[in-house]
């Protein structure tokens, strides 16, 4: 058959690769900065935008969506063209995708910096950006499927199955989790509340890990690893089984982020068992990667690209074994809310995602510039620096997590908590310092790579359009008997639909009953909506990212009940749009903070935490004392809440600010009695109102019950 001549678009790949390197370094610097704040709180600069609560979401969003996101697009745009034997469907769409995504990243960083956040982890971006993400994701999808449909290769390679599953699942997760009620241009409330919001959020959060950080990178592995090793993929059957098993089982495992919380037990158990079942499908990817290197291990000794891939795949195997172990309730009871989890995710982030990206870039740049790597030695040094960095990063955090959990749970013989919360924090500060050393090494390695790649590009000449030849796809494929999966591989649309069905099942079976079956969230009559001032205070709590360090979820453990009060009930959170359970306790739980300290304590504590608890590592929040509360937004917020089903009286939006001022005045007077002069219209007053409300409702119920009994 006549072959056709065409050109691969390398320029778009180059741009995405540049963006990967740039955002990688930026994201890692942000990470290092937040790591330093753990032992040097003054590094927050007493400035809102650089305080942990705002900088941490910038770090996570930068490394996930900017660094790994651009890495994914680099790899997809390079490999998809070659696996389909076709140029990208549309250059215009490619560039819209590229610049759109970079615009989203910049908009995300800017809005998070200014405190515009939804307060849901890894989905912090406000609704206009959510919409932009959806649109750009569709552009990416159209471009990808356009390319697939005009391919010159009859079957789809396993890498493309992973790209397709990634695309459809991320779309589903993003859209469902981002349902929110706009209040203004940069403020919205999650459509869901409390337990339901938590379930949807962690269904999303867990599967963002699965379908943004795992499946696309597995796709890249399936292309770049055999290419770099020049070896055939170990097992086609293993690819099939682990692909379908992985995408089916992964979706179910979200609730393992909510073990021992107020989430119904049946959902927690599903999270546990599907996590355990996930070990083998995850390891299927690792085995297929490592076994592909059979007969090429001598090359691994020589080639830095393969070294990066080997450690990446091994880290993938380690963290996907550790994940299910952490999902066992007895292990989770120790690890959850501690730095153990931070160590765990960084094995995946630094090891798997980072090293896959580095290996891919080291392979790609010489190829596209038609030359060889500037310095293999420098790349090998980067490899060792990075590997040592990961070890020095992770081990101290495992230690810290375990040690702190043990201290939390220790009682004296006479039945008292042995350690104050703060003691458990100051005890692990050396580990925080060591961790940031590991992170620094890793960052230096990444900068070395940027230099190395820059030099490589300098010495070669860029091939913007790479010539290729292939015969067009025959119109009618043979109808002979073939292996069932070969049949699907010829039908991208079918593959897309099957993937969607497979990933939708788990989500539907977990989420729908939680929404519809009333017994999952038993009503507590004493739980009332927040007052206008408390609602404003809660929005400040969300804006400052307090949830990045403080949980609001007391688990049914002896130590937590002794330390924080009665364990949390599902019915307490019905008006929480969004929920603020948190996932890490750098500071103590706040679910029952209300009434524990006087207003003046909170005032002094927000100004300088160390004045009230010496040794605390919490940042200062001086601007809360100066900023005026934006009461103009109150009516819109009340109306938005009413739309979401919060039972404020009809027409309350007009009266809300009057109530707000009354309550604020009360707090002003109470502060004055403790010799603190502040006008009632400051943000700190609203925040104090919210903090004093936390956990009060259920205490009120206890009192009425006792009174009734008397």
């Amino acid at each position, binding site marked *: 058959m006549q072959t056709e001549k065409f050109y691969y678009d390398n320029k778009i790949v180059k741009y995405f690769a540049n963006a990967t390197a740039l955002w990688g370094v930026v994201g890692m610097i942000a990470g290092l900065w937040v790591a330093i704040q753990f032992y040097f709180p003054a590094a927050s600069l007493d400035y809102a935008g650089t305080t942990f609560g705002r900088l941490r979401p910038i770090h996570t969003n930068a490394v996930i969506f900017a660094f790994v996101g651009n890495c994914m697009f680099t790899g997809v745009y390079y490999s998809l063209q070659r696996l389909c*034997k076709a140029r990208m469907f549309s250059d215009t769409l490619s560039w819209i995708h590229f610049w759109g995504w970079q615009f989203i990243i910049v908009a995300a960083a800017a809005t998070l910096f200014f405190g515009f956040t939804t307060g849901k982890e890894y989905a912090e971006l406000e609704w206009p950006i959510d919409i932009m993400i959806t649109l750009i994701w569709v552009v990416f999808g159209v471009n990808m499927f356009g390319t697939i449909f005009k391919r010159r290769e009859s079957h789809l390679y396993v890498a493309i199955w992973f790209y397709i599953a990634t695309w459809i699942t991320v779309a589903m997760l993003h859209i469902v989790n981002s349902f929110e009620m706009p209040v203004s241009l940069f403020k919205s409330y999650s459509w869901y509340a409390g337990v339901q919001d938590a379930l949807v959020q962690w269904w999303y959060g867990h599967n963002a890990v699965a379908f943004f950080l795992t499946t696309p990178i597995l796709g890249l592995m399936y292309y770049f690893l055999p290419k770099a090793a020049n070896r055939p993929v170990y*097992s086609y059957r293993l690819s099939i089984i682990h692909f379908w098993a992985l995408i089916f089982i992964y979706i179910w495992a979200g609730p393992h982020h909510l073990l021992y919380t107020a989430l119904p*037990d049946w959902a927690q158990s599903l999270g546990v*068992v599907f996590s355990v079942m996930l070990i*083998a499908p995850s390891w299927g990817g690792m085995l297929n990667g490592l076994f592909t290197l*059979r007969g090429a291990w001598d090359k691994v000794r020589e080639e830095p690209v393969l070294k990066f891939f080997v450690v990446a795949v091994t880290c993938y195997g380690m963290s996907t074994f550790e994940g299910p172990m952490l999902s066992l309730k007895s292990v989770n009871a120790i690890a959850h809310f501690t730095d153990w989890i931070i160590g765990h995710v960084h094995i995946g982030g630094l090891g798997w995602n980072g090293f896959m990206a580095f290996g891919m870039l080291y392979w790609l740049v010489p190829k596209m510039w038609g030359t060889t790597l500037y310095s293999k030695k420098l790349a090998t040094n980067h490899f060792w620096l990075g590997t040592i960095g990961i070890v020095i990063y992770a081990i101290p955090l495992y230690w810290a997590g375990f040690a702190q959990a043990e201290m939390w749970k220790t009682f004296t013989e*006479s039945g008292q908590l042995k350690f104050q919360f703060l003691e458990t924090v100051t005890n692990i500060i050396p580990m925080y310092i060591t961790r940031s050393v590991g992170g620094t090494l890793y960052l230096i390695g990444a900068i070395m790579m940027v230099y190395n790649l820059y030099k490589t590009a300098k010495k070669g000449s860029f091939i913007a359009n790479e010539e290729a030849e292939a015969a067009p796809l025959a119109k009618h494929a043979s109808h002979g008997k073939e292996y069932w999966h070969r049949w699907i591989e010829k039908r991208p649309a079918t593959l897309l639909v099957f993937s969607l069905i497979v990933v939708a099942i788990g989500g539907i079976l977990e989420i729908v009953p939680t929404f*519809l079956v009333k017994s999952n969230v038993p009503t507590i009559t004493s739980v009332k909506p927040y007052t206008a001032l408390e609602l404003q205070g809660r929005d400040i709590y969300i804006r400052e990212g307090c949830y990045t360090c403080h949980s609001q979820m007391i688990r049914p453990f002896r130590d937590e009940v002794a330390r924080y009060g009665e364990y949390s009930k599902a019915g307490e959170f019905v008006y929480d749009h969004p929920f603020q359970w948190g996932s890490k306790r750098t500071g103590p739980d706040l679910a029952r903070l209300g009434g524990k300290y006087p207003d003046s304590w909170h005032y002094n504590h927000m100004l300088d935490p160390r004045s009230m608890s010496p040794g605390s590592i919490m940042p200062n929040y001086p601007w809360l004392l100066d900023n005026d509360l934006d009461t103009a937004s109150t009516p819109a917020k009340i109306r938005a809440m009413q739309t979401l089903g919060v039972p404020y009286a009809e027409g309350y939006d007009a009266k809300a600010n009057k109530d707000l001022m009354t309550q604020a005045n009360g707090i002003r007077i109470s502060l004055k009695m403790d010799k603190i002069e502040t006008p009632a219209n400051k943000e700190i007053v609203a925040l104090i109102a919210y903090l004093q409300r936390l956990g009060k409702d259920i205490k009120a119920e206890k009192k009425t019950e006792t009174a009734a009994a008397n």
Partner: protein
Amino acid sequence: MFTYKLHFIKPFLRKLFVAAPLLLLGSVAAAQQTGSAPAPSIWDNALALTMLLISLVLLLVIALLANVVLGTAKLHFDKQKKSGTAAKIVSILLLFLAPSILHAQNAAAEAVAPAGPSSIGGLTPLTFWVLAGVIAVELLVIIVMGLFVQRFLAKEKIAVAAEEGIAVKTKPSGFKVWWDKLNSFKPMEQEANIVLDHNYDGIRELDNRLPPWWLYGFYVTIIIGGIYLWRYHVSETAPLSKQEFEIAMKKADEEKAAYLAKAANNVDENTVTLMKEVTALDAGKAAFVQMCAACHGKAGEGSVGPNLTDDYWLHGGSINDVFKTIKYGWPEKGMKAWQDDFSPVQIAQIASYIKSLNGTNPPNGKEKQGDLYKENGAAPATDSTAKKEVVIK
């Protein structure tokens, strides 16, 4: 909305979630049990479940070994003989399955019958011995199969050696042999036979089998998943979070009571007396500086909290009242309860230290609050209300 109509869904889903993995498990007894009331059944017994799990894992090992036996046999017997071996193996497997089905029926019977007085680990002797027997038979089958494999392999080695006319040369390390078998690796030289005709931008694919340990490991996790759901949500023999909490609290209370019964630590607001020893006051001071100074000032002069050095007290100034205030707190006024942080003796030490501050008159003292209290004076006016509050708490 639709909520009340869907009440039935939860129990239904429960059953569905459990039934699905159990189908994979192929357990006959499961179906017999789901409908029955939560009478004491074999499924509630941890020993039984453990034994059952062992027997299932062994079954997987047998299946794995059977594969290996078939493979090695293939090298030696002609087609006719091989199918004979296969039949033999199938019959062995059936032999194994038969007792397990029998045992399932037994289990159902046991569930109905009241538990006999003589039991082994909560199981009737019959059930126990049946389970133990199943495991023993399985172990036996494994040993026999292992012997078969060994024999076949030994023959193969001799045959190969004879064919090549040389002694077995450079033996690979034991680990490598084990590793290759574990993953059922094909020798590199035979790789050409398993290259598929796929070619994607130069990437080829091999038709290697799934690594057996991986595949059977996958099955084991599915079985574990099924048993997990069964134990927590159908037989309800494993404690859910709230039950776990109650168990932990009960245990803690017992331990605490046992400790306090024998310790001199057993002091409360009624029995506390003013301590005057220097060691006690120093211990009280250390705790005060660490925890109380934040609100009451380093010298007790008061800041957010009241002045503790003057003669005026909001909640009574006797050692008993101070002890009580520290122990239970006055949460409405910002004083937290410290009884989970400090032991009774420590609270007594802190209270004694606070009493020792009386009249020290430190700089920046906060203005007086509450009622005048004089040692050995009249009972504080707030006493009666305080008692009431404590009752409510």
